[in-house]
């Protein structure tokens, strides 16, 4: 019994206390005809050692030596101290801090996190996190529809430059509530959302405009103009940002004349490993006027009976465990443990450390771009400023190139043709601060090798 401490003697004494003949008799209220034993399809239990051996085999199958994929999940260096502290049982095995007096550690950390995220995004307030970037955006869309008192419209403008998976997730989550998602076209040469495509909408009422910065292609959008256009229309602006990039780029609170209204995104780049896509950590910040429409947990500072400062969950009247069917969202958990990682990461890096990471990501990606587009048959696609990801067009099938590279132990990027067939064969590639000159060299040599070989890439 791996984790059950009972001795035979304990069990006997306990059954005697409750006056029952056997453990089995405790299940006598379940109708007998419904009872069913688990079948042998479920394997026998294993020792910890045996499970370690089994899982090591699985884990080792998935090792690659170099990764140039971004597309919403980014490889960054994580200081050793981050997960050493996050792994403490006091953080990892604590429950939601409903009993505030016994949870001041988690609560104060969440308050510090809220402060850091609000400042990074240039917003007044932050919640204590959402599940991930895409689901945070879905909640932001629902929130914008509730919060926008200037219009009854349930129409949201969604640029096609937004991550395709984010577009799928918001569609799954918001369409049951009769919210209309309107795609905004992008420029095939610039890779951004041109203002003209907005003007073409005429007098249509709009609840909110989503602005990704940088967008899925890594391209920087004209955020000031887009923000002002939306506000002139009476629409709210939802910014979807990479929080690491905010060390370098203008915070959404300062976009246009009055700033974005809601800011959300994926905080995975701030101390959370790639880990096959999760657990990650969505964030959401907003202007103070909208705080009561915000979903998720929020921590506030207050005082105790003796007047000593302390922290507690607040504005709980928005939440499902109080408001039930009238709650702002059904969300119950946040990503507390990942918030712990993000907060410690941000504390260690500081503004300067974070800025250095962001600049080095940009620098490495520019070097990669310059190198890779020198390979014959690999061409730039867009001609606009970018952060740390770029799209290149390939004469050969991008999927074949990726397969060939993966056989050399390199994860070479993301093939975009499934989502953007109109762009033809393209690869989205990313080089973060983790890449050295040598890594870039190895990558380009591998691409070249597979590219100039007479045979198709798939046979390399």
């Amino acid at each position, binding site marked *: 019994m791996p*984790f059950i*401490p*009972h001795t035979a003697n304990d069990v006997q004494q306990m059954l005697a206390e409750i006056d029952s003949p056997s453990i089995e008799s405790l299940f006598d209220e*379940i109708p007998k005809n*419904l009872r069913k034993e688990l079948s*042998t*399809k479920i394997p026998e239990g294993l020792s910890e050692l045996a*499970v370690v051996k089994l899982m090591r085999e699985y*884990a080792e*199958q*998935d*090792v690659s030596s170099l*990764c140039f994929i971004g*597309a919403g999940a980014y*490889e960054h260096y994580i200081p050793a101290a981050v997960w050493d502290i996050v792994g403490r*049982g006091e953080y*990892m*095995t*604590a*429950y*939601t801090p409903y009993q505030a*007096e*016994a949870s001041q*550690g*988690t609560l104060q950390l969440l308050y*510090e996190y809220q*402060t850091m995220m609000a400042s*990074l995004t240039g917003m007044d307030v932050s919640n*204590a996190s959402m599940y991930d970037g895409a*689901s945070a955006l879905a909640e932001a869309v629902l929130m914008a529809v509730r919060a926008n008192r200037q219009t009854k419209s349930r129409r949201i403008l969604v640029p096609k430059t937004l991550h395709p998976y984010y577009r*799928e997730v918001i569609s799954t989550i918001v369409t*049951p509530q009769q919210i209309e998602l309107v795609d905004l076209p992008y420029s095939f040469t610039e890779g951004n959302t041109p203002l003209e495509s907005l003007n073409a909408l005429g007098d249509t009422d709009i609840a909110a405009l989503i602005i990704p910065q940088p967008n899925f292609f890594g391209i*920087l959008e004209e955020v000031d103009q887009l923000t002002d256009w939306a506000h002139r229309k009476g629409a709210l602006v939802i910014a979807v940002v990479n929080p690491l990039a905010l060390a370098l780029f*203008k*915070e959404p609170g300062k976009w246009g004349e009055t700033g974005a209204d809601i800011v959300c995104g*994926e905080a995975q780049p701030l101390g959370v490993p*790639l880990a*096959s*896509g*999760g*657990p990650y950590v969505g964030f959401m910040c907003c202007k103070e006027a909208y*705080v009561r429409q915000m979903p998720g947990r929020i921590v*506030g500072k*207050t005082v*105790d009976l003796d007047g000593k*400062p302390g922290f507690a969950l*607040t504005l709980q*009247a928005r939440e*499902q465990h109080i*408001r039930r069917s009238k709650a702002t969202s*059904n*969300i119950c*958990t946040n990503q*507390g443990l*990942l918030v712990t990682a993000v907060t410690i990461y941000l504390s260690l890096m*500081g503004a300067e*450390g974070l800025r250095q990471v962001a600049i*080095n990501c940009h620098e490495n990606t*520019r070097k990669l771009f310059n190198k890779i587009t020198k390979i014959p048959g690999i061409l730039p696609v867009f001609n606009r400023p970018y952060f740390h990801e770029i799209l290149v067009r390939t004469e050969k099938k991008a999927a074949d190139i990726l397969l060939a590279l993966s056989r050399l132990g390199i994860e070479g990027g993301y093939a975009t043709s499934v989502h953007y067939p109109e762009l033809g064969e393209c690869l989205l590639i990313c080089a973060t*601060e983790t890449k050295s000159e040598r890594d870039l060299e190895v990558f380009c040599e591998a691409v070249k090798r597979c590219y100039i070989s007479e045979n198709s890439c798939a046979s390399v």
Partner: protein
Amino acid sequence: MTILDLENKTIFEYSQQGRNAGAQLLGTLGDSSDLPAALLRSSKPLLPETSELDVVRHYTRLSQKNFSIDTHFYPLGSCTMKYNPRAAHRIASMPGFLQRHPLAQEIHSQGFLACLYDFQEILIEVTGMAGVSLTPMAGAQGEFAGVAMIRAYHLARGDHERDEILVPDAAHGTNPASAVMCGFKVREIPTKADGDMDFEELKKAVGPKTAGIMLTNPSTLGVFERHIEDIAQLVHQAGGLLYYDGANLNAILGKVRPGDMGFDIMHINLHKTFATPHGGGGPGSGPVAVSKRVEPFLPAPIVGKKGDSYVWLDKDNRPQTIGRLSTFMGNAGILLRAYIYARLLGREGLKRVAEYATLNANYLMIRLKKAGFTLAFPARRASHEFILTLSKEEKQFGVTAMDIAKRLLDYGFHAPTTYFPLLIPECLLIEPTETESKQTLDGFACAMIAILKEATTNPDQLKKAPYHQPVRRLDDVKAARELNLVWRDSKQNLKGEETKQ
């Protein structure tokens, strides 16, 4: 500066201009002069300027202000705070798992996909269902997925009139909230004094507008719904579907399966039944399992097998899916931890979870009853949890469930769940879990008995508990009225100092 001041400092108050965690600076700074100035940040974000030791010490000290399973008994009803095996965390942190990009090629994915595929199979067997999707990132997202599948199922049949979801009044708050998020109206069904659902009221409510019913069984009242077969028959005959809230699946593992009870759709809280850490509020994980007729609607992606290799099945292969719920593959690392837990326990171990959780709950319930506490359902078996009601103590001594909960903290026990389910006045919902020993339960019972005595001798003292925690009872009203959600310094406003970059 005194020790007390130090204890209350935020990380921002450690800042000294120019200080940093030097080992984390990259040194060489790249060139960003090609970026347009209009898009750049002109003010520094408010992040601490501290040494690495400052950060390590601050967050280590903060951790010490938390209760956790690793440090305290945590009998939090409905939340299943059992031991989270260290092995699961360590193994899921192997480099091959941590460094794998979610969009990696399939040859760098076979290990991860094999684990997920196996885990899908285990969950199918445990639940008695026909298919599983692992993507929902929490129980509440699993509920959303489940209700969205109910909606999709009816619409696919051309049945557009069903706009009601039935929910018992004892249900988790997420149930009605999830139904509303999927565009349904919620109709509440009352509970009878014996803890079972009021079947006569259910009969009146079920009809052509019924899309489905959401049930937890054992219910949130800590008792098994004995008329589940009649309920299933009634709802199915009316054309509705049955949704199983898997919050209490740990109570029936290997004893009875939701699929065999007649449920069509369910979610499983891996952070409860499969012992993944709660992390101070998350991540959770809420896979959904479904019967055959609902299988085509499962959220994407799921993992399939093609010959000897494992493949992702997305909307291209599964055109009727309700769609994607997370950017990539849900809380992937939590799925691995749950899978590891399942492999450690195996078939017999899973069954013992239900057995010993139930034994512990019944034992503690009887001990507290004998000590003079009032049970909410004295004639019933406890499932894996049970409810005390303190209305008598409240009337006699003015001592509430909250007072007792707070006092327990001083005795070194986390409080049980208070004031849930809402229909039981002054209630404590107590779930000991299978990983606690008889000796721990006895210690808890002794503390409860001591507190009950305090209620009779010195109720005023109880009302101001706790006394031995980092803070005393907090002013929630002030927290909500005078919102202070971010740290501010008189010298530095929230948006940071204007600096030239």
